Every structure is written in structure tokens, then in C-alpha cells.
């Protein structure tokens, strides 16, 4: 069985982002970019399934400009066997189009599992996994905190982080899984693996070759800074705090 993992190149999670003065978006030039943390978790899970004998190959996929190849190179250094780079110069590819591209790739690659991060930390959409599952008519296990594959039965049991607890579902393969934070702790690429990754193949395809048109029904009108919360006062005692909460804020 093959596992396909999709990944997104985003502004590094530790960078404090800056909204552009012309309100067209967020400054990305000269900003450190990294693999979306949830995608790292998705890749790690795929690698662990492969290492435990559940899969024979892990294919990493990314969609975007030439620089997206850096993210795929990282994936190869972490242990992915090969990579597919869907090249586009479109400034934004929205989740619906991403889902169509991934769905077309799944038709070609025929993976048993497609694993994605539950959301990207830039647009915080939390949509792509659900949408590609819908397009493929595959079952979905979103916000996964535990994944157990049963190769014999061709099914996967997924524990999901939902409001007010954990939900367990069992999906027949092929299936889509999206990863939550605590599914695993992604590994670091070691130096020998980084060297080895240089000789691994990144295949390039275009959306046109996959018969997917890049367009969207969404238009960003503006990106602005959120209203600032002004810092309040530092109090000196618990008595003063209780007094303020009761008599000034009136929340007690």
C-alpha cells in the first residue's frame, strides 16, 4: 500500500507576521518559511506506518511556486520516498482547487491512505482534507490523535479530537486522515538523510496536466490588523483584584 501526504509551505510558526500597509495581505518577502507543522505530523504518521510494515511507499505532494520544492526536499530528508511538485505561479491556490488537484493525483497514484494536516497555520482554513475526501467519495477521519491500521481487513481506526472528548471511527481503505497536534512528535531530518534526499526524485506536474483549472469563487478584499487590546493595569494584591472585578468590571 502507498501513502500520499500533502504539505504546504507557510511562514514559520515562530515568525511574528506583519500585515502589509496596502492591506493586500501579509508580508512574505524575506520571511522564514517552513513546512506547515500539521503537515510535518501527517508525514511523520505516514513514515511510522511504513516503518511498522503497514505501507510500502510514502509519496509527498506540494502545490505552489518553485520554492515549494524546498518543503518537498525537507519531506524527502525526513524519509518520504519520492515527491510530486504541482507547479503553479498563482499567488493563492484555495482549498477547493487544492482538493481537486489532490483528488486528480490520487486517481493517478492510487494511495491507500491520504494524510494531511488538519489546517495550515497561515489561512487557518481547516478544509482541504474534508473536501478532497468528499471529491473522492472516500471516508474521512479528521483531527486524528491516534491512527491504527489493520492491513488485513483493509481498514483504519481513527481516534478524533472533538468538542467534549474523543470520538473513534473505523474507515475502510482508501481513506483520508487529517492530523491533530498530539498524534505524534515529528522527527528531525538527520544530516545523512538530508544528503540522501538530494538524490531522491521530485516529479513536476502542472495543474493543466491534471485537468484542473486554477480559479476561485473567493476574492480577498482586504487584510487588516486586528483591533489592539490595550494593556490594563497591574494590581498589587488579591484584595484589589477582587474589588476591581466586583466593582469596576462587574463580572463577579
Amino acid at each position: 500500500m502507498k501513502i500520499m501526504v500533502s504539505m504546504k509551505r507557510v511562514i514559520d510558526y515562530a515568525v511574528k507576521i506583519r500585515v502589509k500597509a496596502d492591506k493586500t495581505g501579509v508580508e512574505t518577502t524575506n520571511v522564514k518559511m517552513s513546512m506547515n507543522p500539521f503537515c510535518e505530523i501527517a508525514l511523520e504518521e505516514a513514515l511510522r506506518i511504513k516503518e511498522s510494515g503497514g505501507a510500502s511507499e510514502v509519496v509527498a505532494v506540494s502545490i505552489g511556486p518553485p520554492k515549494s520544492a524546498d518543503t518537498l526536499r525537507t519531506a524527502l530528508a525526513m524519509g518520504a520516498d519520492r515527491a510530486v511538485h504541482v507547479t503553479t505561479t498563482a499567488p493563492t491556490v484555495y482549498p477547493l482547487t487544492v482538493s481537486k488537484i489532490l483528488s486528480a493525483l490520487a486517481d493517478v497514484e492510487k494511495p491507500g491512505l491520504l494524510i494531511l494536516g488538519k489546517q495550515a497555520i497561515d489561512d487557518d482554513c481547516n478544509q482541504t482534507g474534508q473536501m478532497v475526501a468528499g471529491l473522492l467519495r472516500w471516508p474521512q477521519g479528521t483531527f486524528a490523535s491516534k491512527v491504527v491500521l489493520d492491513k488485513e481487513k483493509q481498514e483504519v481506526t481513527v481516534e478524533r479530537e472533538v468538542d467534549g472528548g474523543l470520538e473513534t471511527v473505523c474507515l475502510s481503505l482508501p481513506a483520508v486522515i487529517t492530523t491533530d497536534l498530539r498524534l505524534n512528535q515529528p522527527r528531525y531530518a538527520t544530516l545523512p538523510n538530508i544528503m540522501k534526499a538530494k538524490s531522491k526524485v521530485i516529479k513536476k506536474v502542472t495543474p493543466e496536466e491534471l485537468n484542473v483549472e486554477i480559479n476561485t469563487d473567493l476574492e480577498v478584499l482586504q487584510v487588516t490588523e486586528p483591533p489592539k487590546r490595550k494593556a490594563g493595569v497591574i494590581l498589587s494584591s488579591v484584595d484589589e483584584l477582587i474589588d476591581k472585578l466586583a466593582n469596576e468590571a462587574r463580572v463577579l
Partner: protein
Amino acid sequence: ISTLVLGEHKGGIVKPSCLSAISAAGSICNDNSISILLAGSGPSLQKAASHAASSHPSLSQVLVADNDLLTHPLAETWADLVHFVQQKEKYSYIITSSSSFGKNILPRAAALLNVSPITDVIEISDPKVFTRPIYAGNALSTVRYNGLDPCMLTVRATSFATPTLSLKESNSTFAAISQVDLSEFTQETFGKSKWIKKSSPNTERPDLVNARVVVTGGRGLKSAENFKLLETLAGKLDAAVGATRAAVDAGFVANDLQVGQTGKIVAPELYIAFGVSGAIQHLAGMRDSKIIVAINKDSDAPIFQVADYGLVGDLFDVIPELLEKLPVD
């Protein structure tokens, strides 16, 4: 203009977050005919339907999809159901709350309808213009939906107020209840996913997202044992307990108590943070709280920059003192 709200219910009650979704639908325009779709099976579904009928003055219809296939809220069945209902009724909007229920189902249904959904809407400024936070709330993106109907949204419950009076008290009319004819409902993905179980931690505390007061612990709490201290305080304040990612990762509390960009988004009247440094990812989950109180040993902790009231001190001194001195209702 017509809107379908996807409703979640439990124990015969429609969840409050769905009522926020109805409020959001009501804010789109004045002549919006709003229906809520409830799915499930058996008496608890019918009970939830009558609860829904008198839950919100903006609601005109309750649609009930009663079928054994729908007993558990599986995304596969639900998305097919939404697609099925949309083919017949041609709603202009399909809206649900940004809960784990809504986020699981709505994007899948949107893909079946070839629509780009919009996640986490916090403001509707024009019938097709929506504002949503991006980058953990460090920027706000305003987007216009230019596609065909339906326009599909998940909305943040904390951004759309629910009516305070129930209809029974205000003597308003009830919404009509009608059953969805499922005789032609075919479920394409039938049997591909099975619901096994749901485990919920035993807690008497109010739900984190809907609580009026939230007390949160960070790494500064140091242990699961110490979180019990926070539980006691929460008991006194009738508050929900939350946690930072650091506290959850350290195993002090269960995953679903995490407040932040990738966890729960809360906006209570009063938010009290103990031993929380204030990482941007955490602030993203609570910055809309009405009053924020921070208690931290480190006077340079970033949490103080967003707190209305700060107290520099050891939480292990402050919590017992609060327990002793807080007024009892």
C-alpha cells in the same frame, strides 16, 4: 433569500453554538427565511426538534432527517444529506458553527456542491462579504464570495450573540417542524465509515466554549495534581477550566481543554489565566474575552500586554487566597 443551518444536538437539546449560527444567518439580511436541519434517529431527535422550534426568534422552519444511518454525526452521511436537501430546496446559504461537528461536515458538503466554504466567520458586513481571522488571529481577512449558490460558512459562536429570552417567555410563535422525505436519499459512501464510540471526560464543569467564566492554567501549574487546585477555583466561580498547549502537551489535562489557534476559541465574560506566558497561538484563542485577568510570576510575560488586570505573583499563593476571599453567591 433562504438559509439552511446545520444543527447539532445532544440529549434532546440543540447546542447553543447552532443558535449563534442562526443569529449569523439572521444578520445577513432582513428577509432571510431560516431553516435548521437536524439529523439523527429516535425520540431524542424529535425532542431536539421541538426544542429547536422555540429556540430562536429568527428561525422559521425545523427540518428533521430521521434515519438509522444518521444516528451518529458521520461526515460522510451528513455531507450526502446536505447535498440531497440542497438539490431540492436550493438554499442561498448553508451555515453551521465552527465546532468540530461543523468543521468536519461543512467543507465536505461544500466539495460535493463545488463551492469554496468560508471558515470561522466573525463578521458579516454585506450579504456576501465576510471577515475571518487568519494567522492565529494576527490578521483579519475580508473576503467576498463571488460563486454560485449556496454560499457556505462556518461561523464562530463567540462572535454572534444568541437571544437571551426563550420564545416561551417572549410569547413568540414557534417554527414549523417538518420531516425530510428520505425515501430517495442514497448514501454513496454507505458503510465506508463506522462510528465506534465517543468518550467524554467526566466533568461537572460548564462547557469551555459556552462558559461565562474560564480559568486557564499554563505550564506554571507544573502538574496534573496542581490543576485540581484550578478545578476547585473553577467550582467556586462556576467556570470552565482551560489550558495552554504547553500544559496539555505536558499531560496535565485532557487535549480538549486546549485554548488557542488550533484548540478551542473562547470569549467569556471573564478569563483568568494562571501561569500562562501568552504565546500568540494561545492569545488567538481568548483575545476576544471581555475581561482578561493574568496571574504570573514573570512580570515580563506577554500575557500582561492583553490583560485588563494583571497580578505579578506566585499562583500557588494567589489561588488559595482567591478561594478564601472570593464572595460566595
